[in-house]
């Protein structure tokens, strides 16, 4: 093995790589740091950054998988996106789903967390009951609900026992969207509930005691103490829920396949149809870029808003 001698100017002699002087504790630490970070970094590059870059690249092409064509079309897919007659309906359905899900999920999670935060018998049982759907496989959960929501399914069967006639839930435009939202809320409300519960239990008791002495009622205590103290958790759960709601797919696919009509065709489902059913991966990628932009903008807005309503934010 030969060693290369570095061509260094006189007076500025440096330790050779691998030599005793070069291999300092600092360099060793740095190498260890890089090695420790390498798996995570490789994963991020390979499975996040690279696909993200490819998505932008594909969106600039016409890629018909069957025909084997992959041709540069520049901004053509974006022009098509701007003129797509189906897009307003799709964005409307997406907004309706997200709004319904976020409002229902967060408010229900908070109410459940407050109820289960009381020192009452049986709260552990109820916590387990409300949290258990989170651990169930999404598709299995949704398939069971599809049977329950059929015209002659369990939900309408239950309603008929009290003399009420339920609608054909998954076949009416308004009821289908409501059904998809409720099924998704019931699936995931437990997760937000646990996060709220942890936040509620982190609120110092002294604050409540002090305010009670000052004569604050239950509502004032909730508004002036509980809400500000758990506001970082509200921010976290709202970001997770909004982003999650924009990525809903399996529930739509299993429950309604985007119907009736196109009333539950949300953006991700429309993207899936274009890419994987219509074999148009280029336009599918363009819709992904739109989804990415929407998620990014909403997250930035929420992040900026934290200054206004999150207490104790550095």
């Amino acid at each position: 093995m030969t060693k290369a001698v570095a061509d260094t100017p006189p007076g500025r002699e440096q330790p050779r790589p691998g030599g005793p002087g070069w291999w300092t504790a600092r360099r060793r630490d740095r190498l260890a740091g890089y090695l420790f970070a390498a798996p995570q970094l490789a994963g991020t590059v390979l499975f996040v950054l690279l696909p993200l870059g490819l998505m932008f690249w594909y969106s600039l092409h016409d890629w018909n998988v069957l025909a084997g064509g992959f041709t540069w079309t520049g901004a053509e897919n974006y022009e098509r996106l701007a003129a797509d007659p189906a897009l307003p309906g799709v964005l409307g359905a997406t907004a309706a789903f997200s709004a319904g899900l976020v409002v229902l999920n967060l408010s229900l999670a908070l109410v459940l967390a407050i109820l289960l935060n009381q020192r009452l018998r049986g709260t552990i049982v109820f916590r387990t009951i409300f949290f258990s759907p989170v651990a169930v496989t999404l598709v299995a959960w949704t398939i069971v609900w599809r049977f329950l929501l059929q015209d002659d399914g369990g939900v309408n069967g239950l309603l008929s026992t009290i003399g009420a006639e339920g609608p054909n839930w998954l076949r009416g435009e308004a009821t289908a969207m409501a059904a998809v939202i409720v099924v998704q809320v019931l699936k995931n409300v437990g997760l937000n509930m646990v996060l709220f519960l942890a936040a509620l239990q982190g609120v110092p008791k002294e604050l409540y005691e002090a305010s009670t002495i000052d004569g604050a009622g239950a509502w004032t205590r909730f508004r002036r103490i509980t809400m500000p103290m758990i506001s970082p958790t509200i921010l976290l759960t709202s970001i997770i829920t909004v982003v999650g709601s924009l990525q809903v797919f399996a529930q739509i696919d299993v429950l309604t396949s985007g119907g009736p009509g196109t009333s539950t065709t949300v953006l991700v489902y429309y993207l899936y149809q274009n890419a994987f059913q219509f074999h148009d991966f280029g336009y599918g990628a363009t819709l992904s870029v739109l989804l990415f932009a929407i998620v990014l903008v909403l997250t930035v807005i929420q992040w900026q808003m934290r200054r206004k309503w999150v207490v104790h934010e550095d």
Partner: protein
Amino acid sequence: MKHARLLIAAAAAAPLALAACGGADDDGPVTLRMTTWSASEDHLAMLNEIADAYTADHPEVEAIEFDPLPFEGYTSTLTTQIAGDNAPDLAWILENSAPDFVTSGALVPLTDTLSGADGYEYDDLIPAATELWTHDDELYAYPFSTSPFAVFANEDLLAEAGQPTAAELVASGEWTWERAVEAGAAVHAATGTDGLVIRDFDYTGWDNLSTLWTGWGANAWSADGAECGFDDPEMTEALTFMHDAVFEQEAMPGPGTTADFFAGEAAFTVTQISRAGLLADAAFEWDLVPLPAGPTGDYSVIGQAGLGVLTVAPHPEEAADFLAYMTNPENSAKLAQYFPPPRESQLTAEVLGQANPLLSPEQLQAVVIDRIDAGVVKPSHTGQAQLDQAVRAALDPLWTADADVAGVLAELCTAIDPLLAQ
């Protein structure tokens, strides 16, 4: 000890180095892969038997793997594999995606390979069977299964409702859609079970309704695919008939209701004969009869499945050669155990009887052999997946009790006209 942390870090990063070491292709004998949507052990055993006989004589092919994909989403899975540079060599192709595959250049032309193969008897293939898979006089896929739609009847339910058997209706010349729906409604009224189920329709798989509307002479679109047929008077009449059958006579289960004929939950079901296998342990008496006559008389609708070689296959030449072997007269007779063959000489009650031991020669003659030549295939069009969605979405408003049938169908045409024009 001073290197301990570095060693742990190196160990943590080691899997990356391993992952970077991929395998490389070799130049030896090739392995072919064929995707199917059947995971039936019997089907796979038969396919493997044919494959083993082929590889024994063809050293250039080391092995042939059959890769069953779920029927639900089959075409999407296949195209995703193609997009992911993991295309199979051969693939089963559903009839509704036939035009997309056949006209896009996705499949290798087969006419020369098949007609040039020793003892292939290419002219034995029935033109009505190969038409869907042919483009510019070139065959792009072999229609290995060509199976007419027929009606299974539950004799016990009909008797319970005081109705004649299906065979009696056929014999007396009364076997029409109107009479079938009347019998279905009577069964529903008398027993509470459902009357007539067009299987796999479920208010989404609308192309299965062609088994009904063809009896009215209706078509989804014109033969050249350019003009919408849903607003034609024949179609309006056919779908008005069906709407009444569902919502007024309650002879067919409504949207959001499931009824499985094979579990004894309906008097009749319209489906392909290959489903007869589901009746092996049936707890009721049943029969198989041709589709009922419509206002335009007798007709038949056939469902098909093709087998093609993908242009982007890793080994297209070897795959085409195997396809020729797999579908030669000798192996076609083996395939006929499960799939009605497109070969004229093999469309006999005897050959089909081996495949369908539950069906009598008379049933096979009446339902399959007499009907296959005149069969109309289910509607398909270039860009079928997009059309499929558009029609499904536009038909949804039809499935309410107070729907305006003609109005819905006119809007449907407005919705799909731009797609048909593409």
